[in-house]
């Protein structure tokens, strides 16, 4: 009797777990389905190769935003990865009151709302330089990416066993070389995937760009001039009153989701491929 009840309970729990797991996936599938359905209709080759047209005209593409997004991501990457890796190394290697504080600050930085990052980008770059630019957008995005890179670097390097460091020291290697040529290479897979996760984190951000990168209907690769970005374009077009701009916004959403998806797959691949066996 008792046994039967327990088996029944067991089955019930199993069904519940499966039910709730599937139900969490539902919204995800719904989003993907809607974006793909509406997005694919908007996409053709011209969509990728032409610039937006003035309201009222038919057609137009998103070349400027694709180029702009990549420009912004590259700037953010160039700023955030060296700083992030260095701070990550510092936090792994040094333990004192200052680094404890720094760790808290990194967490705070991670929690800062993205719109605030935009304001910081505005104050730090736009104001002194006297105009909106891709650089200011990249800086704002770099601030968002930084904590992700720091934490991933720190967590990966912490896993590198101390006996490797000792082996390096015992060969007469100095501290700097030990860190750069033994510890960092051993954690390279994790550090790299940290950078990619950071890029994923900022790829879809709109708010930091509103008053930094600003948007630009023309093709621009000059980091000192405003650029458009996919999330900005989606934001602007989706709020417009024009029917065919909605279509373009859907297409841009599809492209953005594809970029994120591909980056995620690359990240997974790198983590698996570059995992160091200790």
């Amino acid at each position, binding site marked *: 009797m008792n046994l039967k009840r327990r088996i029944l309970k067991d089955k019930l729990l199993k069904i519940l777990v499966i039910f709730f797991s599937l139900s969490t996936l539902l919204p995800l599938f719904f989003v993907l389905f809607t974006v793909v359905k509406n997005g694919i209709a908007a996409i053709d080759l011209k969509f990728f190769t032409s610039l937006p047209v003035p309201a009222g005209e038919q057609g137009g593409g998103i070349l400027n935003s694709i180029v702009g997004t990549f420009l912004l991501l590259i700037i953010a990457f160039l700023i955030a990865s060296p700083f992030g890796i260095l701070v990550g190394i510092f936090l792994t290697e040094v333990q004192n009151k200052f680094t404890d504080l720094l760790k808290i600050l990194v967490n705070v930085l991670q929690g800062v709302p993205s719109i605030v990052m935009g304001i910081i980008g505005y104050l730090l770059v736009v104001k002194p330089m006297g105009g909106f630019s891709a650089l200011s957008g990249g800086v704002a995005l770099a601030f968002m990416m930084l904590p992700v890179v720091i934490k991933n670097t720190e967590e990966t390097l912490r896993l590198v066993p101390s006996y490797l460091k000792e082996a390096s020291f015992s060969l*007469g290697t100095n501290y700097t*070389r030990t860190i750069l040529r*033994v510890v960092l*290479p051993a954690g390279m897979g994790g550090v790299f995937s940290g950078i990619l996760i950071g890029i994923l984190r900022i790829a879809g951000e709109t708010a930091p760009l509103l008053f930094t990168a600003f948007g630009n209907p023309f093709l621009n690769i000059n980091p000192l001039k405003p650029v458009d970005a996919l999330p900005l374009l989606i934001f602007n077009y989706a709020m417009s009153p024009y029917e065919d701009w909605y279509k373009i916004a859907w297409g841009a959403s599809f492209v953005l989701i594809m970029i994120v998806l591909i980056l995620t797959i690359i990240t997974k691949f790198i983590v698996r491929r570059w995992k160091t066996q200790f």
Partner: protein
Amino acid sequence: MENTILKIVNLSAGFGKNWVLKNINLEIEKNKVIAIMGPSGCGKSTLIRCINRMHEITSGAILEGRIYLDGKDIFLMPPVAVRRKIGMVFQRPNPFPTMSIYDNVIAGYILNGIKLKREERDRIVEETLKKAYLWEEVKDVLYKRGVFLSGGQQQRLCIARALAMDPEILLLDEPTSSLDPKATSMIEELIIKLKKTVTVVLVTHNRAQAARVSDYTAFLYLGEIIEFDKTSRMFTAPKDKRTEEYLTGKFG
């Protein structure tokens, strides 16, 4: 003693406020195998980690006394220079996981940024691996990662890595404690052959191992050297009662 290569004078060392080693005095002769034997926690590892100045890396490490290598005070030399002259092999085999077997052997050169010509590198790798009795087993897989070798092979690779720097002294910190009996006996044979070219200081908690491979044995107990003598003499006629009790297995 003639031919002294290493002289330890009034050495005390420990962590925080706790002195693990108390006033150690020891003279080590060139081209001999010296075993440092004693129960767990007696300070064996701390002692040899002082010799290549690895003890100081640990946070909270304290140290007093002098160690002379060829008559020169090692605490007045840069630690990096000391460690190039005094190689070390650890308890757990620790080849560099990101490097091939070939690169592991010459890791000391690679990590220190010492440039070698191709032929020179090949020569060092082959000679050192032969010295470590590993060449026959790995000569066809030199460009594979070192971590794919067996534990015993990895440990011999680590010995080769230390030997490649051409050290005067080789410190072995319980090099066989994580290995099976067969790998252990190979390492022991290797140690005996190595003393032709290098002085070996071997830490072990295995009495039989000390008896098999060493010329001299130091018995370390509670941070003090109780007895230091020719191995053959100590194992047959120990002078101190504690040594005798340890050797007959009464403790440790």
